[in-house]
């Protein structure tokens, strides 16, 4: 048998050029040598991995730069520019009536005279508006208002949507059924109508109650808008989170936690929410621009902040009147809205691609 085998094949020694090798090559390798070949790759957390991918996305990184610049501007500019958003330009304590509707980087007669007399003034970078207020600072404040409305509205939506969605998703069954029918009903309400109705009603109800508070400056319209966001816009978030939780709940690690005796609250907190965190962050990032849009839109219709507080939308609305003669007045707030919304959208997309590649179409 053995002989037969050796006959059948050509001897191994004839197949290779044995002179290439030395017997040292065939000594057993030590465990150490073996393990040198096997290096466990560097520990990467989920977050760092996502950030690495995000940094590779040029559009998202450009958006981050734009957003940081915008943020810095709206924080620092009011400290440097000596004009107030609701302050009509005065020269030497006298109201400057000629300072209305000036083009960017121009001076009114009084200001020119003041400069000629040796005084120095801060330039009107975007010119002035029809009542003689510095337009640049108004746009800056408008962006402040728009951004904070967007941010707070999104946070409001996030909190309500997350609580509602996670309860419905986790407990499922009848609870889920009832909660989701409520969501369906809310979905069917026309949101614009609700804003208009609420702002009328709230003006009556809140009229005096707000006086003296911070909210007074924003006006009852703004409060109405937050209420509407809080009442209506969370449904999308709630649905999304419920869906996420339904899939996460099916994972065996949730079953494992149950098996270990973990109570529901712990399972939601420790396992379910952290695992839909990426979706929550991404959706919130995409919710901000949509809230900014809604705010601008409502302000444009005259349902937003009350004068003299500006928002990007109400500025655009005011600019409408002199559109033929002063087109740049519409351009500045419009451009600001575009930049902010575009940057936030691109960043949101970038975040989604980086942290949750599955969500990509």
């Amino acid at each position, binding site marked *: 048998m053995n002989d037969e085998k050796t006959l059948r*094949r050509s001897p191994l020694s004839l197949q290779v050029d044995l002179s290439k090798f030395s017997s040292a090559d*065939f*000594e057993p390798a030590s465990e150490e040598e073996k393990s040198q070949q096997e290096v466990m790759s560097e520990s990467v957390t989920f977050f760092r991995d996502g950030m690495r991918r995000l940094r590779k996305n040029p559009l998202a990184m450009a958006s981050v730069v734009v957003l940081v610049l915008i943020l810095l501007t709206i924080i620092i500019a009011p400290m440097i520019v000596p004009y107030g958003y609701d302050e009509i330009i005065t020269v030497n304590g006298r109201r400057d009536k000629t300072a209305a509707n000036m083009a960017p980087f121009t001076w009114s007669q009084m200001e020119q005279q003041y400069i000629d007399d040796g005084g120095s003034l801060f330039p009107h970078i975007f010119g002035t508006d029809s009542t003689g207020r510095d337009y640049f600072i108004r746009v800056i404040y408008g962006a402040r208002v728009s951004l904070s409305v967007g941010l707070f509205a999104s946070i409001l939506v996030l909190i309500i949507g997350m609580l509602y969605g996670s309860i419905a998703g986790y407990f499922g069954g009848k609870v889920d059924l009832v909660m989701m029918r409520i969501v369906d009903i809310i979905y069917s309400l026309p949101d614009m109508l609700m804003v208009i109705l609420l702002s009328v009603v709230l003006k009556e109800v809140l009229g005096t109650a707000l006086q003296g508070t911070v909210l007074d400056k924003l006006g009852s319209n703004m409060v109405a808008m937050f209420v509407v966001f809080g009442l209506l816009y969370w449904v999308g978030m709630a649905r999304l989170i419920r869906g996420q939780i339904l899939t996460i709940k099916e994972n065996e690690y949730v079953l494992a936690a149950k098996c270990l005796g973990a109570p529901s609250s712990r399972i939601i907190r420790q396992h379910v929410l952290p695992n839909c965190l990426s979706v929550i962050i991404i959706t919130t990032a995409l919710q901000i621009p949509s809230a900014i849009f809604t705010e601008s839109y409502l302000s444009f219709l005259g349902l937003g902040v009350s004068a003299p507080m500006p928002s990007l939308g109400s500025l655009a609305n005011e600019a409408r009147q002199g559109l033929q003669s002063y087109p740049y007045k519409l351009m500045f707030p419009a451009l600001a809205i575009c930049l902010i919304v575009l940057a936030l959208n691109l960043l949101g997309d970038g975040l989604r691609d980086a942290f949750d590649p599955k969500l990509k179409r």
Partner: protein
Amino acid sequence: MSEEKKYVLQVKDLHTTFVTDSGEVQAVNGVSFNLEPGKILGIVGESGSGKSVTAYSIMQILAENGRVTSGEVLYNGEDITKWSKKQMTGFRGKCCSIIFQDPMTSLNPVFTIGNQLEEAIRLHTGKSKKEAKERAVEMLKLVGVNEPAKRVKQYPFELSGGMRQRVMIAMALACEPDILIADEPTTALDVTIQAQILELMQELQHKLGMAIIIVTHDLGVIADMCDEIIVMYGGRVCERGTADDIFYEPAHEYTKGLLRSIPTAGNTHERLQPIGGTPINLLNMPEGCAFCTRCDNAMKICLTQVPEELQVGEHHRASCWMNVKQAMEEAAK
């Protein structure tokens, strides 16, 4: 008969890479094999061994980030890696078909079985609608689907997993290809259904005479049905030979370890002898033999040089430095 004509499919030094976020992955690293008409070839390996990628490279159905970087795939002597997209569309289905692991997702849920079968038939043969319909029923009968005339009107979700896999086979064979590639055809199925499908594939092979490539991780599946078995590890071929060669005279340390580690009827009351270590990380491959980090008999040369393939039996070849060591000892005598 010339060398080229003898084989229906020849794969020569195939290299396939995937570009991933963490770097380039060499999934298939110089695989070669020949397939004669009407033979059954088994490719065995664990996940990450490159066995499925080899099959996909032949069909040119790699994921977007994958690319055949070098090597030839000769179909009846013609290099199909140089074919146009249009030629490849003709190749798939008509010359070479593939069935996948998961019969649940490889059928379109919104069309009936009949629709999908007819479409596959008409795409390649130019038969009329009526002829295609008849052929569809005939194919279903061939793969052992009961009441085929009724089944053509059903949707995939109405069939069980085993039935769906039969439909997939019918679809793959509808245009009488020369080669059938079965990528883990029974992994998603139960043992009793697995037995049915394997039996069916052998039976169809006898009837229709096509060549079959079975890709699997389960040594048991291919023990009794393959003419040749290729064992892959880390994108390379470790060993190739007949079933008897591989199972009774394994000549690669990986194959030996694998055979030792599986429970059989014979070693029930003994402790299993597992292969140590963790599976290869394709991003971080050893310089030498891919298996060296897990091999009990690893030698210094294994860590630095890739072993070349040696003939150890009539149809039996293996790439393991242990064989060269043996040759050294032979020569010393």
